[in-house]
């Protein structure tokens, strides 16, 4: 008897399936694809921040040899505005509102000719007053930026549970501070690009790096006034996403307009400078936080007000309050909480979604206050947090229900591994002592949600090779490999037996896109559902063929086996071939649609929005040079409640990458915008963290085995970037006794703060002032 050993891939270090291809330079990104007959598109952007366009003359550009089409807003009369507020035409006509504004576009034989043509377009502007500050935008009588919003308010959010006045009355300690969070940008190593082509029947094929192909398809159909069924989106491998490709942007629409006008395929790829100028940023925020607690350390209330700079048009950045309020209301147990946000139009660039989606900003403020309150009541930062941390089973004021919750384990694990308490006390005691370099340690935690639904189609061929068709795109995060692992686990097959197809809307089932750390959880459950249906079908067929009852069969190592003994009964491939060639030919092809058991928020933003919640605690250690203000991040200890580790290699990589992205947010990255202009659109002046600067990283996984998760797993993609800046602020304070309320912690800012010459951020809404 041949016994087949059961082998599992779950929790192992599984190399990404596409790694060999990528490491050998064979992967074709959007930049590497050329289609025959293709023209190059280029966009002319505004030379002014806020101005009326008096005149555009494209005649000289049109006359340049090699130029096929030059378009302005006048050539596309009925543009349908895009964006969250539908306030954004792709080509701007009579007015420009920020330096990104697209006012003309060229399609030419080569990139160089297209570029040369841009220089020949004449534009006459009439300057308008520039509003570069959201506070100024809200002042009575401020110039209007977007005609449909005369008060310059793009959005408002109001959230409350409990009664903060009562909470305040019950408090022994109350603290209040303002915080200021800056612009950073995604810096995907592969710049943005798209190829648009129409076939002879007018069907549109887009080669696009969007993270939301199905939503895109619908939007494009509306923009072009055609049936969505005539649009196909193919996604080549992507050179980094991090949330940047979650919205539809003018360049994509412009490429389509150009292709339609030229009747030729058009490829449009950004330069790095253009990427800095025109791709989305993280949402900048001014935030005022008032929090209180009792002497025993229990939180009493939290009252938050934020002002968001919307920029000139509304993209996803404006909706980050959805996520921010979850941290305010539910990271810790807060009986009374109030949150108000105003999102104000300005002439600045607009923010999009960016890994963590508002949570870095909210966590920065909340965790700074957790340290301040702990200090005020004489508790150590860990004990104070444990006193207020959520437990499994908790239903929060916002209506979230934490089925699995490893928060306290995260706190304890990160603190223990890093020797947090002893070091914190030691560094604190050393604050007053001499020495140029001070060491500090800080702690911060986070809660993050995930959601959406996902479909899977799964097919087995007559060699027992599986094709998994999923709407969940691979954006470098390794979802492909994780999904394949989950399917292999169900069907007892090696990883090499699976191909994942996830990049073509004509093939893959509908999906809401890659975001909100949702792929492992949602797409994973969907893939498992499809695989289980396939397995049931196979075992039923095997039972019929062999006479062994279904319940006693299993799939292991490419064979149908007796579940109890592992004895091989029939090779899976052979069984499948038998099915295909029998007179009642049958294909093993299944579909599954997974919708998580979460509920939509009500009007007051309450509801159990996520089927599972991810938790993490990170401890950051720093060295602060008192003479230069240079902060060096020496070590990060992270404890992550990931439900269960599916691919250890992949999850470590996600977390390490997130930690270093958080390090950049905290210390080096700063997109400087002055009077609406981007001052540092290059890697020379926008400092990403480099290999020698990374901290030592020690990661622990808390496996809470979420009941709803695929094999118990929860999402993790966004979590690691979220607490780093907050923990760094606490570490700097532990090292020096000085708290800084504004990011990033550049040497200059830190030095000034240490010398006491930095003005403290002080912001109040007009209503409160």
């Amino acid at each position, binding site marked *: 008897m041949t016994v087949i050993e059961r082998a599992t891939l779950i929790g192992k270090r599984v190399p990404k399936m596409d*790694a060999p291809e990528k490491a050998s330079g064979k992967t074709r990104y959007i930049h*590497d694809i050329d289609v025959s007959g293709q023209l190059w598109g280029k966009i002319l952007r505004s030379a002014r921040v806020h101005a009326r366009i008096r005149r555009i003359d494209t005649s000289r550009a049109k006359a340049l040899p090699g130029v096929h089409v030059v378009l302005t807003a006048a050539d596309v009369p009925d543009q349908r505005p895009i964006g969250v507020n539908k306030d954004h035409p792709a080509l701007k006509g009579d007015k420009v509102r920020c330096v990104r504004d697209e006012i003309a576009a060229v399609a030419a034989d080569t990139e160089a000719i297209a570029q040369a043509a841009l220089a020949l377009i004449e534009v006459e502007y009439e300057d308008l007053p520039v509003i570069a500050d959201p506070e100024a935008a809200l002042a009575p009588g401020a110039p209007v930026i977007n005609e449909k919003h005369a008060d310059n308010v793009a959005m408002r959010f109001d959230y409350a549970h409990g009664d903060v006045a009562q909470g305040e009355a019950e408090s022994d300690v109350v603290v209040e501070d303002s915080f200021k969070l800056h612009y950073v940008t995604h810096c995907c190593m592969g710049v943005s690009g798209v190829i648009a082509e129409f076939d002879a029947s007018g069907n549109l094929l887009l080669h696009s790096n969007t993270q939301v192909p199905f939503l895109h398809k619908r939007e494009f159909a509306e923009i072009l006034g055609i049936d969505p069924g005539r649009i196909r989106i193919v996604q080549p491998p992507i050179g980094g996403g991090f949330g940047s490709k979650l919205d539809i942007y003018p360049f994509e629409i412009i490429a389509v307009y150009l292709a339609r006008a030229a009747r030729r395929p058009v490829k449009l790829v950004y330069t790095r400078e253009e990427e800095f100028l025109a791709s989305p940023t993280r949402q900048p925020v001014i935030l005022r936080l008032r929090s209180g607690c009792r002497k025993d350390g229990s939180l009493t209330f939290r009252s938050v007000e934020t002002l968001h700079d919307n920029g000139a048009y509304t993209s996803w950045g404006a909706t980050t309050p959805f996520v921010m309020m979850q941290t305010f209301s539910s990271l810790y147990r807060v009986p009374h909480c109030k949150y108000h946000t105003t999102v104000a139009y300005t002439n600045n660039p607009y923010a999009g979604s960016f890994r963590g989606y508002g949570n870095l900003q909210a966590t920065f403020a909340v965790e700074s206050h957790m340290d301040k309150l702990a200090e005020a009541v004489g508790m150590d930062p860990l004990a104070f947090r444990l006193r207020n941390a959520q437990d499994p089973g908790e239903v929060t004021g916002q209506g979230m229900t934490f089925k699995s919750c490893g928060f306290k384990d995260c706190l304890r694990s990160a603190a223990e591994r890093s020797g947090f308490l002893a070091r914190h006390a030691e560094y604190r005691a050393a604050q007053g002592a001499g020495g140029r370099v001070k060491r500090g340690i800080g702690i911060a935690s986070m809660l993050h949600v995930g959601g959406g639904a996902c479909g899977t189609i799964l097919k087995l061929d007559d060699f027992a090779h599986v094709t998994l068709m999923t709407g969940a795109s691979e954006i470098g995060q390794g979802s492909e490999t994780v999904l394949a692992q989950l399917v292999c686990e169900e069907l007892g097959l090696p990883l090499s037996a699976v191909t994942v197809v996830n990049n073509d809307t004509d093939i893959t089932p509908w999906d809401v896109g890659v975001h909100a750390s949702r792929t492992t959880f949602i797409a994973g459950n969907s893939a498992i559902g499809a695989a289980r249906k396939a397995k049931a079908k196979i075992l039923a067929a095997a039972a019929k063929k062999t006479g062994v009852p279904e319940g006693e069969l299993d799939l292991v190592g490419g064979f149908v086996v007796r579940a109890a003994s592992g004895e091989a009964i029939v090779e899976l491939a052979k069984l499948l071939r038998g099915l295909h060639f029998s007179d009642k030919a049958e294909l093993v092809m299944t579909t599954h649609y997974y919708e998580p058991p979460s509920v939509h928020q009500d009007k007051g933003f309450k509801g159990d929005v996520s089927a599972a919640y991810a938790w993490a605690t990170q401890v950051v250690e720093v060295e602060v040079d008192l003479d230069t203000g240079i902060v060096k991040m020496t070590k990060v200890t992270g404890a992550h409640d990931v439900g269960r580790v599916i691919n250890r290699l992949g999850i470590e990589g996600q977390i390490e990458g997130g930690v270093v992205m958080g390090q950049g947010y905290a210390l080096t990255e700063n997109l400087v915008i002055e009077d609406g202009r981007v001052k540092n659109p290059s890697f020379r002046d926008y400092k*990403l963290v*480099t290999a020698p600067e990374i901290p030592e*990283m020690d990661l622990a996984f808390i496996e809470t085995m979420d009941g709803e998760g695929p094999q118990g797993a929860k999402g993790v993609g966004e979590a690691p970037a979220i607490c780093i800046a907050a923990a760094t602020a606490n570490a700097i304070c532990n090292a020096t006794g000085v708290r800084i309320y504004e990011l990033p912690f550049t040497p200059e800012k830190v030095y000034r703060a240490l010398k006491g010459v930095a003005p403290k951020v002080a912001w109040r809404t007009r209503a409160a002032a």
Partner: protein
Amino acid sequence: MSRSVEIEFRLNGVVRRAAVRADMSALAMLRDVLGLTGTKYGCGEGECGACTILVDGASLNACLLFAVDCDGREVTTIEGLANDPAAQRLQRAFAEHGAVQCGFCTPGMVLQAGRILARAGQPDRATIQRGLEGNLCRCTGYKKIIDAVEAAAKERAA
């Protein structure tokens, strides 16, 4: 448009000629004229290392090199390493150690790592980190890339 110049050089072991504009970068020549897209454009100004190539054995940013300056020299791109055992060792190590995520920086990293290993037999971690300083990666946080280079160095020694 500036006029074209005819150059001759050895590319990935094969002598070849190309007609290039005087203002064209080696990166543009490789990608747009010769169709070798493994060398990536990340910034075009020598800041990211995505365009790393080897010229007469030294690693250079192809975006900063004029195409005409390749004349008479020996140029190696990621495609040219397909049969190189040292590069294969590195590529395997990158995959096994999880050093590849979106992969956009990877060809440049592999070439640069190859140079680090060629220069120092058994580089320590700090040497590897310094050697990779000019290569940006937004996805991995570098740790697994450093792990991979270290592992490839050990494997070579073994």
